[in-house]
């Protein structure tokens, strides 16, 4: 299935790439359907977020390692929960890499952003009314280096030893640092705005639940 080993890990055959994409898409689909209580508007807003942030990522690709998706994944996880955060991470990685270049690394980028989203779901980053920007900025800095760690795993080959991997980590530190600085800028500029947007999705979901519960009571 793997055709060769390259700088980004194994070069996938067309069949392997298709299988990987189907698995990732299936994972995202399953996470979005569970629990099955979303309305169409909720899904549309999340889909819009995926498309918009993917487009922004593509547009910002010329800037080395400036990754707006990391902060959005963090906030999606924090406001919408781990499941939808992971789904968001997978979909953005797949969609943006369809333009930037798909491959073995997509799996690791999706995993990296998914880990950020899960971390976000476990942290109290405030609300849209009172966002905790300091904590958000700090977490986004840590997330940058964590994401770098996960994506560097895509470079691991069967012959890669621990020291070689650590060397790769050390060499990538300047890029991770730029990622961290970019994350802080995104938090400061867009954090509160993103919180308000995500609260609307959250609110719409709560509204559905409220309507359903009222119908049950009425019934």
């Amino acid at each position: 299935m793997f055709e060769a080993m390259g700088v980004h890990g194994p070069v996938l055959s067309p069949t392997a790439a298709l299988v990987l994409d189907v698995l990732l898409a299936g994972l995202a689909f399953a996470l979005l359907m569970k629990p099955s209580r979303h309305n169409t508007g909720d899904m549309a807003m999340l889909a819009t977020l995926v498309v918009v942030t993917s487009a922004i990522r593509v547009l910002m690709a010329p800037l080395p390692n400036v990754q707006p998706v990391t902060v959005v994944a963090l906030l999606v996880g924090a406001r919408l929960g781990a499941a939808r955060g992971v789904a968001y991470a997978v979909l953005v990685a797949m969609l943006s890499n369809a333009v930037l270049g798909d491959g073995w690394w997509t799996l690791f980028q999706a995993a990296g952003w998914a880990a950020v989203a899960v971390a976000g779901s476990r942290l109290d980053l405030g609300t849209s009314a009172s966002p905790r920007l300091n904590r958000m900025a700090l977490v986004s800095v840590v997330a940058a280096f964590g994401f770098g760690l996960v994506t560097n795993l895509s470079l691991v080959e069967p012959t890669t030893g621990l020291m070689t991997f650590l060397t790769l980590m050390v060499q990538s530190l300047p890029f991770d640092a730029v990622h961290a600085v970019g994350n802080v800028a995104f938090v400061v500029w867009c954090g509160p705005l993103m919180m308000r947007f995500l609260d609307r999705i959250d609110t719409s979901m709560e509204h559905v639940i409220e309507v359903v519960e009222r119908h049950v009571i009425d019934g």
Partner: protein
Amino acid sequence: MRRQMLTAWCLLLVTCWLPVASAGWTSSWSYTLDEGYITTTPQTDGEHIFLRSSGFWMGEERPFVVALDKSGEEQWRHTNPNATQHDMSPLLVVKKTSGDCGDAGPSLIVGWSDGRLERLAPSNGTVMWSVSTDVNVWGITGALAMDDDHVVVPTRHGLVRVCLNDGQVNLSVTTGLGWRNGVTVVDDGFWQGDENGGLWFVDRNGSAELRWNASGHLRHAPLVVGDFLLLHVQHTANTSIMAFNFSSNESHFVAASGPSPAIPIKTSFGAVFGDGHHLTTVRCDATCWVEDRVNATTNGAMSTYRDRSIWYPINTESGGWGTVSLTSNGTFGDVNTLSTAVDTYGTAAPLFTGGRMYLGNDAGVLVEFVDYQPPSEPFVYEPTATIGGLALALGMIGTAVLARRSSIDWGWRGLSAIGLVLALVMLPDVVTQWTKEAPVVPGPVTEWNETWPDAWRDGHVFILEFEDRTLVEGGNRGVMTVEELTRLATRELDVPIEVQTTTLGPYLTAFDGVEALGWEYFVNGERVPLSMADAMLESPSIVHWRLA
């Protein structure tokens, strides 16, 4: 409180930015030898920079002397077709002489390893006369010296004295077997050491006398300090600094020192010695003593700069040049190093002339540096840096004003945006520097292939590995970066390349139309995480491109 702190930080960053670090040496141009090393100190007549190549010549190439103008353009070149050994005798520039044997105009005197001594015209390299001296594998390897209107030449077995005007040899003396043993001229004759430790005095009548045996190799011209000759005696694994009183014929031990001595230099207070372990200053009065000592590694020539510092080549694989400040009584100050993009082994001392410094090393590259002195020389602003600095200053001031008068949120936004822009602007330089410091990821083992021609050994080898074929091009010289080598070799191989310009430098996207998932390169088996334009080559290197 936070607002005031943010304001203070912004203003602090502005003040830090404004004095852009422009003081010190700035490189201006470089010149690369086609073949060989630069192992002797460049020389100048005020109009030209003279270099000689050195190497062990097996193919068709031969050593040469080259003259560059002040912009680094080659003006002339003079090749010796008969020399095949390393040429280590420093070039000697003479302005004008007059005396009993006639008047001589400006001259460039060259001693060759095949025993030939030549006087060249500095303006065009014309050979004005040529003299042969004795050869035993090597010929002339030591430093020449002037004796009024004559040049005194250390030969393989002694010395000769040649009239500069017409090349007539009027003194030829046999002493001991010599190697790099320069001659020192004094009023009543000449001092010279030999490979067996013999210290010889030759009077002006040609009478040679062995005055002392130092029990080691004497591979430099003795230094006259007061009544003493100072000598750096080379033993198998270490050296001794010795003083010989030529009035009383008595010698005494001054200090033990490290291996592989450099050529010592005379200073106003005494002398400076260098070797594999130390730089040592020595002073003499009724006796000689070590005044000061610092840790350093140098094995070639050294030079002084404005009588305030010693400069020396660091003869190690990582190379570079060391400099240490010096007081008038021979005490050392701080030791610093200067790195260039072509650092490697080196034995040639820097040449200082007219506010410029010329550094040459075993890579065969000569780099001119300009000494920026704020009080005496005009500051040349680099427009991009100036505009960037002004934009940054304005941004910082604007952010500070916003933080002070308006919303602190806008202050943070401004600061974060400026921080991001700065990070992106600095990233290429940071990555370049980081790569030098960070460990290297090993790549495919690339070793010399015995099937490659020997003629390739002194040049760079270029390997281009496609999925179905591998192309190799070797013997590439005169290139400094992976990009230059790649462009040169692909031109030779007739393989078209496609290159994109990115913020991190040129990015090679395809060889012969093959893009796949990208290309990566390795230099001597190590992956270099730099743009190919920033990856410097130390000669000789093996550059291996393969599909990512």
